[in-house]
């Protein structure tokens, strides 16, 4: 549904995105992950035909974004960052305007607008001025205008920024419902969002593609982590841990009481566990707690992004 080939965008001297390639299949939700300034918005602006790439090719729904911009724009719904809306319009007037501009036949405009307002939970505020409704509602109006023409491709730039936890949850479930019928690209720097919503993740940093994979694959590639709480002499434990095989690194953690806490990263989990067990028996310490820590996308992200920099 979306094909991006050797995409480059330069702003003067500055190379905002550098040779990016990826494809998105029909009905997929693709997460676009990266720190601020990584080039997420730039890629989205190229895909939505807001500006052309410096070089490379972007194809959306079978049409080239640069040569056949109008055909691409007919088939996309776009939610830009910070949700720019005409604040001097009422919600239903605004959505009707967008529906008509997107080519909805005149007699269907009202029906489509009513449906999208219903889907996005906007019926309560339909007669209010956009400038007077809350941020959460504005975000929904933004999503509603993207959805109103039932586009094949949805491009959402940070759709949950600035919302409260309840609204975030609602918006996420709304996006989740869209999968299958629509192809969705969403950008975010909130990592759990990606694992909740997306079938596939693209991580970009400083304009370069760092990784493409399923969130769970990205997570399992990473090494295991475990939290230990042991009562005993901290320095001795540290010395013993350093000598134990199967452990790639460990870090002391502050814990309450006089016990010592450690976060241990294994490179060979089995050997590491056995080593810890025998070390505790040998020294007659008490093992108070031992629990696995889930490796989050956060870790992978930081690892990938910092590896890139190193």
């Amino acid at each position, binding site marked *: 549904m979306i094909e991006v080939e050797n995409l480059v965008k330069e702003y003067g001297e500055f190379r905002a995105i550098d040779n990016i390639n990826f494809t998105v299949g029909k009905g997929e939700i693709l997460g676009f992950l990266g720190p601020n300034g990584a080039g997420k918005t730039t890629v989205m602006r190229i895909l939505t035909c807001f500006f052309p790439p410096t070089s490379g090719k972007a194809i959306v729904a079978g049409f080239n974004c640069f040569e056949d911009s109008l055909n691409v724009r007919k088939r996309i719904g776009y939610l830009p960052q910070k949700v720019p809306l005409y604040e001097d319009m009422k919600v239903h007037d605004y959505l009707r305007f*967008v529906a*008509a501009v997107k080519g909805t036949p005149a007699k269907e405009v009202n029906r489509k607008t009513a449906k999208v307002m219903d889907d996005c939970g906007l019926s309560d505020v339909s007669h209010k001025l956009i400038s007077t409704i809350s941020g959460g509602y504005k975000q929904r109006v933004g999503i509603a205008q993207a959805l109103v023409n039932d586009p094949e491709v949805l491009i959402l730039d940070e759709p949950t920024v600035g919302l409260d936890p309840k609204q975030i949850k609602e918006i996420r479930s709304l996006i989740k419902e869209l999968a299958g019928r629509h192809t969705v690209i969403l950008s975010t720097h909130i990592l759990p969002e990606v694992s909740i919503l997306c079938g596939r993740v693209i991580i970009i940093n400083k304009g370069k593609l760092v990784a493409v994979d399923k969130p769970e694959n990205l997570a399992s590639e990473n090494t295991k982590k475990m939290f230990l709480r042991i009562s005993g002499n901290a320095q001795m434990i540290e010395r013993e841990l350093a000598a134990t095989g199967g452990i790639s690194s460990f870090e002391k953690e502050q814990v309450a009481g006089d016990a010592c806490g450690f976060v241990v990263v294994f490179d060979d989990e089995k050997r590491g566990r056995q080593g810890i067990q025998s070390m505790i028996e040998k020294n007659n310490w008490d093992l108070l707690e031992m629990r696995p820590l889930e490796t989050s996308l956060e870790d992978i992200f930081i690892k990938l992004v910092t590896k890139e920099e190193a």
Partner: protein
Amino acid sequence: MNIRNVSLILNRELKSYFSSLTVYVVILMFLLMTGYFFYNLLATFSIVSFQAQTDPMLAKQYQLLNINETVIRPLFGSISIILLLMTPLLTMRLFAEEKKTGTIELLLTFPINDVDVVLGKYLACIVVLLTMVALTATYPILLIALGEPEVVPIITGYLGLVLIGAAAIALGIFTSSLTENQIVSASISFGMLFFFWLISYSVPLVSAGLGQVLGYLSINEHIASLSKGVVDSEDIIYYLCFIVLFLFLTLRSLETKRWR
């Protein structure tokens, strides 16, 4: 060009114009200023006509007893200058505001051509202009009720006002597309409009050939004959070229925004 899209943009812009205070203030100030000129011209006319009853020489000298020459023509001249002052305030928001708030990003990614966007916005501003100009019709109507002015110069005079206003709006929409700052847009518009207004002042200072060119470029020279009741195709073509040129530049300016 797609008529439906143009009218959609036009309607939206109109709603936006008339839901903000700016337009009402601009129209009010416009009417106060033009009304002030009208009052003074008419008062002068009536005083001089009274004096002329006892002093026939004065009447001859003043070309008096012709209300078209002494009231209507100067009135159109003043209104046209006031229009040049007011239009930048109407046009400055057209693109600059959308750039500032970011709505331009959605507007330009909707499946409509840039031409439709520019024309829609342009025509919305023209509707505001027509409203303003139409409201000044009270002055000539009053004159027709009280005296016997010639009607043709009034009609052609109004044609001139609409043309000069439409030209100023085309220039204004162009400057609005250059920046995201409305004040900057208005300042450039004022500067350029005053240049086109005052350019004829240099005519006596330069050679005859260049003087003719400068005279032709002057934006208010061309309404002079229209307010006398003479419709010269040269004048109409001047304004049409002016409008097309600046609308074209606006389109180019939007396009370069996409390239950068």
